[in-house]
């Protein structure tokens, strides 16, 4: 295996600090891994501009690659194109569900004013019921909304469409 393939494999296994059931790759945050003159050049993109987990992601990538024997690593932030929840992989969506989180639907395109409740066709990640109620559009992190299942009465988190 070439050094580049090895670096890509190592980077692909690093998990998100807020959603540890997802790798950065499954989340769509890991944009590219290249070799440039012996330096592993990694590009990541923020889910939200103010995402405080970005520095931790960078540190985790650097540490894992250092442990794998790469002496020189550069991590840069890529803003364009902006991250979309559509980039979460199928494997990532399955992992979210297995950990009691609801995966995002398709990201909305037109930015029309919505004064009514956000309508999402969600199923409870625990019991599978389609009867759910949003309790807050904002959760413990910027990327999550809070829901409650009206069937099993359990609260759950939903990754927002963005």
């Amino acid at each position, binding site marked *: 295996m070439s050094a580049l393939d090895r670096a890509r494999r190592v980077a692909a296994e690093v998990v998100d600090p807020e959603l540890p059931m997802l790798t950065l790759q499954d989340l769509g945050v890991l944009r590219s891994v290249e070799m440039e003159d012996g330096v592993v050049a990694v590009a990541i993109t923020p889910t939200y*501009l*103010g995402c405080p987990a970005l520095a931790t992601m960078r540190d985790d990538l650097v*540490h894992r690659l250092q442990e794998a024997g790469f002496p020189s690593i550069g991590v840069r*932030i890529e803003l*364009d194109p902006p991250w979309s929840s559509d980039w979460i992989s199928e494997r990532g969506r399955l992992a979210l569900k297995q950990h009691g989180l609801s995966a995002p639907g398709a990201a909305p395109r037109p930015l029309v*004013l919505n*004064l009514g409740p956000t309508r999402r066709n969600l199923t409870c990640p625990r019991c599978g019921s389609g009867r759910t109620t949003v309790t807050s559009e*904002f959760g413990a992190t910027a990327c999550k909304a809070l829901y409650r299942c009206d069937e099993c009465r359990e609260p759950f988190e939903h990754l927002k469409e963005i």
Partner: protein
Amino acid sequence: MAFDGLLEGNSDQWAFGTDFDDPLAGLDVALPAALDPLEHARFCLGLADDALILSQRLAEWCSRAPDLEDDVALANLALDLLGQARLLLGRAALVDPAVVPVLPAGSPVPAEDALAFFRDAAAFRNVQLVELPNGDFAHVIVRLLMFSVARLELFQQLLSSADPVLAAVAARGVKELAYQRDWAGRWFVTLARGTSESRRRVLAALAGLWVHQAELAEAYGLSGGAVLERVFLAGGVAQPDSVVRVGGRGRDGMHTEALSLLLAEMQVVARAHPMGRW
């Protein structure tokens, strides 16, 4: 384990920074010839300061909102704006390094933090709407509604900015601002159609804040008020009469006393340690 990043990272890191050498790295940062660097830096600085100061005001709400969900919402909105502020401050510094305050030789403070923590009130370019002291919950809702409607409209235009950095910030920002606007809009309608007390409060907040709409509209180049009209209509609130701007503009460095007090609190620790390192 948690402190590994702090200990093993770049030893030049300023004690209060995030240790990202350049938040704009990876973007094509060359300024197109069509844009005047001084004017463009000023434009970025105004947008950055609006986000930074409103972020600080929203953060003051932490633990004070009427319920936990909205407390979290306000903190999230503050964080989104702080993210916009960081990139826009960095962009302003890159386009015109003269805007960055001069710090002692060898200071590890990066440009974005120097701009945030080492400028006095008169050097800030934010509109006055964002610096006003917090009031009740209706006040923060009306302020956020006015701000997010204006900012989303401008950011949608900036998607096609000649500056690729500004276009990238706008592309990310519009999605966040849409959540912000919807949240504020829903609460506006809820309060306006709620009890007589909630309606009284939202009308009072609107009456108090609307005098700042003219300055906001001027700074953001707003053409019409179609979105606000829809929200007012949904809430059964009459569109306030248009007002003429009186007094100085925040974009010219003219501010209310409230900004100095906000900055005193926000900057005091950073200013005590311009050379501070981990």
